[in-house]
Structure formats: C-alpha cells, structure tokens
C-alpha cells in the first residue's frame, strides 16, 4: 500500500546515517584506499596522510575564479604566488616565494626577481611570462573574475578589465629580464606585495588553459607548482593531493593530503571522533562549549567579519532610514552569546585586530533610535514590514538568522522570512539577484583595511548591495596611495562612517574566531590570523 512507502525515505536516511557511523568505527587507523581513473587502486599510508574536512564542494579551484575559503584551501596547497607569508612573527609579514626578492624605490614601480630552477608539475620551467599571463587572465573581462579589482592599482589595468582598452601591452606589467617582472602602478602603494600573496594573482599556464578550456582544473589536466599536486577529485566527495617532490620550498612531510567534503558539521564531528578525519577548521556553535574542554581544541582570532547585506534597490531596503533602523535594532552581544565561541561584537566594517579598526564606529544597539527612524521612514505600524532574507545552509548562520529574526520581531515588530540555499546556489543568487537582506562574510586576504573597505566600492564585484558612491570610491583610492599612516587612518574613518553610519548598505555583526579540532597525531597544524591553511609543514604520527 502506498501509505507505507512514504515512510521509507525517512528510514532509508536513518539507515544511511547508521551505516556511516558504523563504517567510521571500523576504519579507524587504517590506510585509505582510492581508485584513480586510469591508474587503478592506490593506497594512502595512514602515517603519511592528513585528512581534513572541507565544508563544501569547492565551487572552483581555478585560482583566478575562486572567491571562497573552501576553494582557497585547495588552491593554496596546489599553487604558489610570487610572495608568501611569514607567520612566525606576531603580525604576519610577507616572505619570498616564487619571487626570490623584490625592490622598489618609490613604492610605485616594483621589480620582482624570480627564483631560478623552479618547475611546473609537468616538468616545464617556470618563467616570468607565466606571471604576466596570470595577471592578464585575471584582468581579462572574459575571465570575469570577482577578484580582478585586486590588480586595478596597475597602470591601465582597470581600463583593460572593463574592456575599454584592448591592448594588454599597455597595462603596467612586463617581462624585463630572463628572471624579472616589473610592475608599474598608477600611484605609490606601500602594501602592494601583500596583494601577490593572494591566489588570484598567482601565475598560470595559459597553454594548459587554452588546451583544456574550463576542464583544465580536473586532475588529469591541471598543472601547478605548489607543495602538493592534485591527484584525484571525486566531486562532492573528496579531493586527494599528493606531495610534489620537485617543490622548491619547504618540502611537505605528508605524502598525501585528503580534503573530505562533509557538509554537515555534526557528521564531521562524528567522523573526527571515530578517527576518520584528522582536522576540522570550523565547528558548530552548539558544540563549542563542550569541545572547548578537549585538548584537540584550538581557537585563534582571525580577520573575518560577518555582516548582513542589503539590496538597496529592493523594497523595503531602498529606504535608508529602514536600513539604519535595522542597524540599531540588532544587539550584537546577544548574537555573540548565542555563538559562545569568543567572537567579538562589532558595528564597524574593519575587523577587530586590524589597523583602522575603530571601536565606537557604526550604529550601536538602541531600540529607541531604531523605532524613531522607522517613524521617520513613514512606517507607523512596523509589523507591516516584511523582510525577505537568504543565507547559505550552515548551522551557525541558521542560529544567527533565527536570533536576528527574533530580535527584529521583539525590538521593532518587523518580521523576517528566512530561506536557506546551498553554498554554490547562494553565491549565484547574491551575485545575480540579491534578496533585500542576506548574510555574508569576508575573510581577510591580506592584513590591511583596504582589503575590507574596497569590497564596497562601486566597481568591486564583491559589492552585492547595489550601493554605489563616487565619493566613497575616491576615499578608498586616496587611502590606498597614502603613505602616511595617521592620515590613512583618518581617510578610512571617513569612508567607514559613510558605510556603516550614513548610507548603511550593510550591517556588520561580529569579528570571527576560527575553531579547530586537530587530532593528536597531527603536529605543526597551521592556525593563523588569516586562516590560510598550507599543509607543507604538517606532520602526522
């Protein structure tokens, strides 16, 4: 009878969960076995394999197109930039990578001397043209990279990226010697080398891309230079990376690095407990208070912010007073209490712990002001206001969304409708047609406020708010070229005021903390303020 069949999916689900858990118990400490297409079965020795949870299928590991932290974790282990990081100092500093050294007299023209004898994973030698090809591909309008603006400081780069200039030779980057690349900027920029640590500015093998098109990131096609090589990519399941024995830098201790794609955080924790996963880079809030007590737990402050963005072209968010009212109506301390993971409440856009952060900046929690602003906006009955909100599926984001929903209802009487989408779908939604309100976050790519504040410039692809302000753009550009630290701070203060006090295209919520669970057999796990996970120095027992 049909009415029984309807019970089946539920039981099937239970069975799957039970199966996963029971398999997890039996496989502890065993070598993993994988099947590589065309190469047959391969055994990954347990003592040389690190298994890390990654939260979703990486949307793209094409380092010019990737914009999210999941993809970045993969690309940063496969590739190197001209410049890397030295995390041994308290404030992360730049360190030589593919470029052996660099020099600049006026902070405007930079010359990079490349390391010699570096080879790509297919044996071809690395050369300056690959750097230029990388820059060209990032800026090419056909690539449509959301990170193209990273190189806008280069001379003529923006015109090229916007399609106004067709000739790339006029853009400020060229090969000036067998091992030398020279970059010419529009204006002086003291932190320029920081930009070259980011995966979007990495060199690329244009010949490989020409040959394979969009499929060049598949394991059989991709050509890389970093400490690991991509061995296998089972979509929605796992990525297996193998040590690059020809790597020029610190050679990995690991033979294999496995990224297991596990969406559900609770499943990930179960797998961690049963010894099937070695490291988790994020934990659900609900469980932090218990996991905190364990010795595998590690927390480190990071340069990430969480904010709720608006689409200022959609009702009711087209009204600035309503946006301001919402900024006043949310008690950030309450959100942080819900998360209970040591996050820092924040009303400004520059995260805590970074140059340019101002504690008092932004619209703080104040119900009276919020109510007053709603009245000014012409809403005598706030219960009529309905806000459509979207987020990606994640237990913590869900918790925050439900809390803010309750806060807005309690404090203003405004109702909010929550919808969740899968990460890839969500990224596309906010890009193509952002809802009136949506959750978003930003993880610092380099430790400079420019990295945060330029997100909201009118030409930034990461600005989903539809807010465009010429004066703000000018301030950000002015600050980037200003070399006096104090004057720079003042310019950023002025820009932040426009962003979080006057026009309010977004509401900042808190500065994040990375929570990890790292198995005892793992040594030297990279936890750092920028949440960059490079695994070449990790050892496992």
């Amino acid at each position, binding site marked *: *009878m*049909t009415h*029984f069949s*309807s019970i089946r999916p*539920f039981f099937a689900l239970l069975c799957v969960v039970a199966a996963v858990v029971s398999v997890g118990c039996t496989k502890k400490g065993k070598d993993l076995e994988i099947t590589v297409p065309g190469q047959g079965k391969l055994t990954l020795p347990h003592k040389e394999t690190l298994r890390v949870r990654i939260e979703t299928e990486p949307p793209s590991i094409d380092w010019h197109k990737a914009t999210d932290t999941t993809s970045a974790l993969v690309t940063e282990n496969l590739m190197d930039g001209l410049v890397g990081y030295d995390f041994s100092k308290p404030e992360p500093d730049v360190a030589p990578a593919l470029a052996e050294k660099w020099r600049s007299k006026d902070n405007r023209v930079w010359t990079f001397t490349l390391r010699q004898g570096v080879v790509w994973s297919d044996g071809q030698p690395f050369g300056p043209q690959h750097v230029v090809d990388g820059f060209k591909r990032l800026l090419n309008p056909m690539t449509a990279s959301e990170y193209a603006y990273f190189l806008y400081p280069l001379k003529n780069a923006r015109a090229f990226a916007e399609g106004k200039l067709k000739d790339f030779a006029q853009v400020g980057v060229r090969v000036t010697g067998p091992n030398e690349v020279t970059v010419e900027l529009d204006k002086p920029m003291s932190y320029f080398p920081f930009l070259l640590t980011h995966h979007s500015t990495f060199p690329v093998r244009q010949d490989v891309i020409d040959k394979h098109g969009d499929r060049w990131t598949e394991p059989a096609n991709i050509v890389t230079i970093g400490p690991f090589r991509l061995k296998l990519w089972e979509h929605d399941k796992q990525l297996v990376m193998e040590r690059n024995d020809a790597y020029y830098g610190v050679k990995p201790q690991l033979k294999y690095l496995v990224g297991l794609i596990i969406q559900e955080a*609770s499943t990930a924790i179960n797998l961690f407990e049963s010894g099937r996963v070695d490291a988790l880079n994020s934990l659900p809030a*609900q469980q932090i208070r218990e996991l905190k007590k364990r010795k595998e737990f590690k927390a480190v402050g990071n340069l990430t912010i969480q904010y709720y963005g608006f689409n200022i072209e959609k009702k009711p968010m087209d009204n600035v007073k309503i946006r301001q009212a919402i900024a006043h109506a949310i008690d950030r301390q309450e959100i942080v209490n*819900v998360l209970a993971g040591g996050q820092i409440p924040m009303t400004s856009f520059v995260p805590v712990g970074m140059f340019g952060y101002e504690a008092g900046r932004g619209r703080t929690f104040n119900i009276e002001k919020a109510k007053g602003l709603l009245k000014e906006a012409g809403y005598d009955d706030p219960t009529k206001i309905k806000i459509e909100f979207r987020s990606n599926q994640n237990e913590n984001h869900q918790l925050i969304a439900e809390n803010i929903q*309750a806060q807005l209802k309690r404090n203003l009487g405004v*109702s909010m409708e929550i919808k969740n989408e899968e990460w890839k779908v969500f990224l596309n939604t906010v890009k193509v047609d952002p809802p009136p309100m949506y959750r978003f976050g930003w993880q610092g790519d380099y430790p400079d406020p420019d990295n945060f504040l330029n997100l909201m410039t009118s030409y930034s692809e990461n600005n989903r708010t539809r807010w465009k302000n010429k004066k703000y753009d000018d301030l950000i550009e002015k600050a980037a070229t200003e070399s006096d630290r104090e004057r720079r701070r003042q310019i950023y203060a002025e820009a932040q005021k426009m962003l979080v006090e006057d026009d309010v295209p977004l509401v900042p919520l808190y500065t994040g903390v990375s929570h990890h669970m790292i198995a005892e057999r793992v040594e030297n796990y990279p936890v750092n303020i920028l949440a960059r996970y490079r695994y070449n120095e990790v050892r496992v027992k």
Partner: protein
Amino acid sequence: MPISVPTLNPNDPLPEGVDAAGPVSAPARSLWSDGFRRLRKNRAAVVSGIFILFICLMAAFADVVAPYSFETQNIDEMLQGPSAKHWFGTDSLGRDLLSRVIYGARMSMSVGVLTAIVSLLIGGIYGAISGWVGGRVDAAMMRAIDILQAVPELLLLILVMVVFNSVDVFESPELKALTGIFLALSIVGWVGLARIVRGQVMQVKQSLYVEAAQALGAKGRVVLFRHIFPNILGPIIVVLTFQIPSNVLFESFLSFIGLGLQPPFSSWGVLCNDGWKAKTDPHLIIFPGLALYLTMLAFNLLGDGLRDAFDPKMKNR
C-alpha cells in the same frame, strides 16, 4: 412451554427491541455499534485513542497549555537540561522545548489530519466513480492513477513545494508553509485511497443486497450512498489511521530537507532535525522524538484495533 417463539397478538403493543417485521432473539445492532463494542475490548486501541485525543486537544489549545511562546528566545537560559522551570529543557536559542513540542503538535497534527481528510475527499470520490461506473471509464481513471504513481513520491513532493514556495499567496508565513506542505501531501496521498475505495466499491457492488436494492428499483445514487458507502467505511477509516502518521512523518521529512516549515515555527519534524545535530544536548532530540514516536505508535495501534473491529471476518472472535 414447548414453543420457542412466542406467538403475538397483532393488537398487543410490541415489546421493546422487536419491530413489526417479525420476532428476533436479540436487540438489533448496527455494524457501527458492533464495531465499537469490539473496539472497546481492545485495551491498546482504547489507550491509543485517548492518547491521540489528548495530543489533539493539546494541539488545539496550544496557546493555553504551553507555558511559554514557541518563539521567545532567552539567551541567558540557552541549552539547559530539563528542570522545574523548563520541563523539557531549552534549545540553543533559549526557547522552551516543551512549548515548542506543544506548538509543534499543532503543526504536525493539522498537517496529518487535514491531509488525510482532503485525500479522503478526492480519493474517495475518484475511487467511487471509477469503481461504480466500471468499464472503460474505470480503465482510463486507473491508468491516470498509474501514471501519477509512476512519478516517485518524493520528487513530486519536492516539485510541488518548490513551485508553491515561489508563489506569494498568503500574508502569514505560517499559513503559507502549512498550506504548501498540506497541498503537496494531499496531491501525493489521495492516490492510494482512490485505489482502495475503488476496490471496495467493486467488491460490494456485486453483493446480493445491492442486487436486491437494484431489483427493487433503487436509483444509482441511492444505492451508492445508502448501501455501498456505509459498508466500505470500515476499511477506509483503517486506511486513514495509517495515512495520518505517515503524513506526519512526511512533513518531518520535508522540513528535514529544508522544504517544509521555515523558522521560527516548529513542528516535530523541525525539532527532530534541529535536535539530532546536538550530540552534547540529548534532550533536544529525546523529547520531540518521543512525542513523534508515541503518536505514531498510538495511531498504528488504533488502526490495528479498528481493522480488527470492523473486519466482518473477525465478527465472531
């Protein structure tokens, strides 16, 4: 006296329990009272029935019964275990779990019962027409059902929910979510009922009393409503008691995969979905799970009891 049947004078008043048609040995009992009498003897079914009634009352008077609101968050009291203040403890946003379970009963039960009623209306009429008319009409109607059944239920459900979610008809998000689930489940649910009603109608159609009624000149409608429906109600009620819990489970499944109720509303499915993730706080899964489990059990036991009570073959046991 040696005569076992008393002879009556036609002018005497009739003794109680005897009608003019002739002498009988016991008071007349309808199919219904017979069924209920047998049902009362089944203790498990009676207890289940009372439990279901209790849950339904709680659901109906949730506003009165629940100690707190289902959406009031108290961050200072989040993730507490059961206590005198919060009998079922609190969830990760400091909401009282008991209140959420009670309000959840309202959602879960109304989805279960309403869907069953709509399924019965659609399926009953469809099946009755198909079974009564028979012939080509029956063949065509049954093939239509086959086509509908060939589509996997879950796929159909998801499709209906997605389409429904994209249209804006209702002001209240609560009503919108409920109507969506209820529509989706009804579309899927009536098919099984239609088949059962058709089978029953076809069976009863050929029985002697129907033939007799037709021979006496009864019209189709009269035969259908006076003779056939009362005789097939038993099996239908039984099917319904199985359908209701499966609807409740399906609602929880829909909410589980994110297509059902949206926050802050709670149903048992939503609560179980939130609860199973929280390994460190077992009360979050135990209480809603228990509510769901006990209700399912009660419906199944009651269904069993009803089947035994109304099955003509079980009459003499």
